[in-house]
């Protein structure tokens, strides 16, 4: 039995109320009034299988549908259609059973600030029917394991952002869930704290837990996950191990140039240059995949200038998840 299974999972949010107000505003043109209220399609039929004990990454830019997916899988968002099963229970019809089997680390720490650190854990355990006699030692052990045991009786507000994020991880673990969800757990953390969080996550994975993490950091997904789903605009683009995904990345180094005008006229002449594997354009953006690294840069610039275009910016990216992502979505992650 897979830990998570989604089929044709779809989520459509109703249009925000904003256009309505615009319509009423004085001077709103007829054009505004004629625009139908567009719904927001956050997920367009997602099929995912996460295996038991797997460290699974959902990778995508902001607005890709990652948080909506996590919201549905953690029973906090109702799917518009399709099914999602977590730990053998359906998120829509058996939400109570799903909640019993999951632990959630939110995007932004949301500890109960009216309680102290250890109370945050023991009360959360109590919401799962665990008596204080069992939760207290477990809470202490988790705080110890996460390196915040000296804060056990502190107010939550006395903790740093990184410490609060660890408290969130402890809270997600206190009731021994089958599946742990982490939504962008390292956003806003300094590099050192991020590394130590990675250690913690690796350790949890080593204990055999199923972990589902969203991130928009390529490196994070690459280093931690067994498998990665690349999502964008509510759709699954790729799903595989990091190694397989990297192999699937278009060969060579990605050279990206912003030009002073439309890059399309350059496609043919640049493609014929030595060392160029593939050329893509997007407005004034020219993407060249090269098997000779940065050595294609100077002939490409020369070609551009011959076409009356100047180069404003150049960037180089080694073949990676990033180059795969760019070639699949036409945009960068950050």
């Amino acid at each position: 039995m897979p830990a998570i299974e989604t089929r044709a999972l779809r989520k459509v949010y109703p249009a925000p109320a904003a256009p309505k107000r615009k319509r009423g505003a004085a001077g709103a043109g007829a054009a505004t009034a004629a625009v139908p209220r567009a719904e927001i399609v956050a997920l367009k039929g997602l099929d995912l299988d996460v295996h038991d004990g797997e460290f699974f990454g959902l990778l995508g830019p902001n607005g890709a549908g990652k948080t909506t997916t996590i919201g549905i899988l953690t029973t906090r968002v109702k799917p518009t259609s399709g099914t999602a099963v977590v730990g053998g229970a359906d998120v829509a019809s058996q939400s109570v059973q799903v909640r019993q089997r999951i632990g959630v680390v939110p995007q932004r720490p949301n500890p109960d600030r009216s309680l102290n650190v250890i109370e945050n854990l023991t009360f959360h355990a109590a919401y799962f029917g665990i008596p204080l006699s069992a939760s207290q030692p477990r809470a202490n052990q988790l705080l110890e394991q996460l390196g915040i045991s000296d804060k056990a009786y502190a107010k939550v507000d006395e903790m740093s952002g990184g410490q609060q994020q660890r408290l969130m991880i402890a809270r997600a673990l206190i009731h021994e869930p089958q599946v742990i969800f982490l939504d962008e757990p390292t956003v806003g953390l300094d590099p050192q704290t991020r590394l130590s969080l990675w250690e913690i996550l690796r350790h949890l994975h080593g204990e055999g837990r199923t972990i589902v993490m969203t991130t928009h950091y390529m490196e994070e997904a690459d280093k931690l996950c067994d498998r990665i789903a690349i999502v964008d605009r509510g759709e699954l683009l790729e799903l595989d191990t990091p190694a397989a995904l990297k192999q699937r990345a278009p060969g060579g180094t990605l050279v990206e140039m912003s030009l002073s005008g439309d890059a399309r006229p350059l496609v043919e002449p640049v493609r014929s240059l030595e060392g160029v594997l593939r050329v893509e354009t997007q407005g004034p953006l020219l993407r060249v995949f090269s098997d000779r690294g940065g050595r294609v840069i100077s002939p490409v610039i020369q070609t551009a200038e011959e076409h009356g275009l100047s180069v404003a910016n150049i960037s180089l990216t080694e073949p990676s998840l990033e180059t795969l992502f760019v070639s699949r979505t036409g945009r960068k992650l950050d």
Partner: protein
Amino acid sequence: MTAIAALPHPVRASSVFLALLRRDVRVARKELAFFLVRTTMQPLLFVIVFGYLLPKMNFVGRGYQTALLPGILAVSLSLSAIQSVALPMVQDFGWTKEIEDRLLAPVSTQLIAAEKIVAGMLQGVIAAAFVLPIARLVMGPISGFTFSHVGELVAIVLLGSMAFSSLGMWLGTAIAPQQIGLMFSVIIAPMLFFGCAYYPWRGLDAVPVMKYLVLVNPMVYIAEGMRGALTPNVPHMPLPVVGVALVLIATIFWSLGMRSFYKRAIG
């Protein structure tokens, strides 16, 4: 797989409910002084001005205090029941998102809302119980004040606190956080002043239009109910009428509050 994969035993909803309630009691105990000052200051000031100063100056008759005290208790009860649910809801759903850890508890979302309403009821009762002895001390002996109708009193207090705690749930989840100030000036203040708390409903015989207009105000029924239970000699609305009205109001606010909470909790 290890023990982690073992299916967890089902958790009893009642034990989760009690844990949620214990959390709210713990937090309320920590903040008891602030809570009492916040919710009982206004009624106590009324007690001093209308229950002590005005009678001393002979602007109002002695009998006024008898009519005033049950009204003051009704205000304390309802105001604190509303606030102790509405304010945390506005904060939790508006920006802190602190309630998320409770929304992940393995019980139905409605039960989590119900617990909040019960916690609000408790705080309403505590506020009224705190105001009573102080009011009695400030006003001196109140003629005709009696505790002999315990059954009626308990029923009115339960129904009234449930109605207003549910109203607090509805307001707290339906109103945008930026408009919480508006809630006090547009909803709470008129409710207090036209709620027959500071004057008995039968006194409005003098202004018949008002007498019937104020009937849309839920405060009227708890104030009149308190009068019927605590100072039965003051002319008041018949208790069965009050009872039916409070059951109706509590049911309506309860379902509105539940629905609105659910809408905020589940996207």
